[in-house]
């Protein structure tokens, strides 16, 4: 099969087309817009049998996606950043309905200050909502993840909506060779949606979105959703094996790269992991035993697979492209919590914050992170969390502040 050059957004749209969706509520936002535009063209040209409506906001868009899914049809929608946050009320609400659909989030950093460029604070804000999360590092993975997400979310053991995340700009607008499954292959993997009991039908009335008071029923339903999410782990592994049989592409909940004999490991999400792999190859040539561990599935959190990958490692450099203000890297906190009780846990976890608001993480910075982590492992002393930020950047920042007339607090 010959690969096609597709952007991450184009790959997402291809995946959606192959999934044979029925309904698409949409609202434009950079850098996601190309996805809904591409789908709009296919729908208008009669190449996709699907209904599409541009809503008045993301809040209405996610509401419409959830209610449509609750009637038992296959639904897709996409957003970014402020859009995801504006719809956050409905993100929690529709997840509780247990009506599956797929939402592609093209990661973009949040206000303030306003920016268009990516980091992961937007998608991580949906961390506790009940949506499952698949994080992609290549355009191929984006296409495949959309198909996997429908199978996963619609599985009767799961029945939850899924966010497929790709990094704005770095993936959304970058063209990479992508193998597009044939319609037949996609259909073999993803049958038409069988909503089971999830439907609206006259003569068989159901009441959705009912209020519960007193806490007992609430606790029951919330915990049920949690168990369904946990259940999605084994379902994900199962469907990935099936996907491999059809397409030959291997996916696991956690990607490990040169980890078997590694002493030092980078731990991170998303597209920057491809740069980390490059750094790993370079560092290996210098004799340093380095590897990479990247969760594809972030919700549910694939704890056991991560623990296995990191067993007996000397040090882990956790690279967070997010910042929980007043705490630090979110991934670092997540990782620490699953390792604490493990006997074979790595000696040190070193926290790095980088790539905020579209800032690059250079290969040299990966070398530096490896060096700091080796040093920490040898000395047994964990350094304080560190923001990847160069002297040159700080000098430029000071220059800009002097133009603006420095009135920011704390300076």
């Amino acid at each position, binding site marked *: 099969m010959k690969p096609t050059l597709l952007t991450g957004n184009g790959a997402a749209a291809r995946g959606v087309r192959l999934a044979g969706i029925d309904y698409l509520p949409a609202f*434009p936002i*950079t850098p996601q817009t190309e996805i809904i535009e591409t789908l*709009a063209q296919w729908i208008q040209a009669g190449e996709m049998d699907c209904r599409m409506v541009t809503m008045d906001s993301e809040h209405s868009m996610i509401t419409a996606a959830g209610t449509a899914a609750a009637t038992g049809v296959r639904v897709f929608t996409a957003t970014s950043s*402020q859009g995801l946050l504006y719809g956050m009320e409905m993100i929690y609400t529709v997840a509780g309905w247990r009506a599956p659909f797929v939402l592609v989030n093209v990661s973009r950093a949040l*206000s303030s200050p306003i920016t268009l460029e990516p980091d992961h604070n937007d998608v991580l804000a949906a961390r506790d909502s009940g949506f499952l999360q698949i994080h992609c590092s290549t355009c191929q993975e984006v296409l495949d993840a959309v198909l996997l997400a429908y199978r996963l979310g619609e599985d009767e053991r799961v029945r939850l909506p899924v966010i497929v995340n790709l990094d704005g700009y770095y993936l959304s607008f970058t063209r990479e060779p992508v193998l597009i499954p044939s319609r037949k292959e996609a259909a073999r993997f993803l049958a038409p949606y069988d909503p089971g009991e999830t439907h609206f039908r006259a003569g068989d009335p159901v009441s959705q979105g009912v209020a519960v008071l007193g806490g007992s029923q609430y606790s029951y339903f919330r915990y049920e959703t949690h168990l369904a999410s946990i259940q999605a782990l084994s379902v994900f592994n199962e469907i990935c094996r099936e996907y491999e049989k059809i397409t030959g592409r291997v996916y696991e909940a956690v990607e490990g790269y040169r980890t078997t004999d590694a002493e030092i490991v980078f731990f991170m999400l998303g597209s920057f992991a491809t740069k980390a792999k490059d750094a790993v190859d370079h560092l290996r040539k210098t004799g340093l035993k380095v590897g990479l561990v990247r969760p594809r599935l972030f919700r549910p959190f694939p704890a056991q697979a991560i623990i296995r990958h990191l067993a007996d490692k000397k040090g882990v450099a956790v690279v967070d492209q997010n910042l929980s203000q007043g705490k630090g890297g979110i991934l670092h906190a997540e990782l620490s919590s699953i390792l604490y009780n493990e006997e074979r846990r790595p000696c040190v976890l070193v926290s790095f914050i980088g790539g905020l608001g579209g800032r690059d993480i250079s290969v040299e910075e990966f070398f530096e992170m490896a060096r700091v982590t080796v040093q920490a492992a040898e000395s047994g002393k964990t350094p304080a969390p560190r923001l990847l930020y160069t002297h040159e950047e700080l000098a430029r920042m000071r220059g800009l502040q002097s133009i603006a007339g420095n009135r920011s607090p704390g300076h």
Partner: protein
Amino acid sequence: MIAEITRIRHKYLRHDKKFPHVWCPGCGIGIVLGSLIRAIDGLGLAKNDLVLASGIGCSGRLPAYVDFNTLHTTHGRALTFSTGIKLANPSLNVLTVMGDGDATAIGGNHFIHAARRNLNLTAIIINNQIYGMTGGQYSPTTPYGSNSTTSPYGHIEHAFSIADLAVTSGASYVARGTVYHVPALDKLISRGIEKEGFSVIEIMTNCHTQYGRRNEMSDPVTMMKWFKDHAVTTTRAKKMSPEELKGKFSIGVLTDIDKPSYTEEYQKIRDRAKGREVKS
């Protein structure tokens, strides 16, 4: 003349810091910016007492260029930011610049309620009939039948009339202008800022890049000509039959009424409460 233009530019724009601007060559938003600072200069308002807030999109960028107190906020919320500022400090002149998507889609609710409350704010709504910055998706003011990236075979929804919406929602002053009729626009904005109560100035602007290009008006001149040919002053419109008015739009002052503004009424309550305190 040139000296006058330079004076105004240097006085009101962050001319040495923020330019060149981000708008496409020929974009009408620059004309709106020019009108706005001329109106402010004409009224002799102190820069320190002025606040300019915007939402998101091409219009959202406007506060970056002016030397007032400025705020570039989130999509659709500009009016709520302005509400907070005005109520906390009623002595400030608060101007809010929004686009058609900002004001009538994602922020539509804020818009009608600000008008209903008759907050003493000035809303300048730059209507280019499209989501320009994100790539030309249809907005609530995209005309029926026209093309956009999300309606490539013709738009099947009907457009809002922003000015009519403002009138029905209770605004004290509502006007519509275009970037072709600039001297008139200066006056409409000036009157809107002066007006006590909620004032709305809808400004029809050319987005030849995203709207015009898909609707056989791919350059600014053609779009300007369209404004020239289709705009009818409110005075003339009164003398025209519905048939003659078909396909046209009116420009000028659509509503100018006096009624108590929220800001005034709120102050009265405060004064009364303070009076009672003194007595007891």
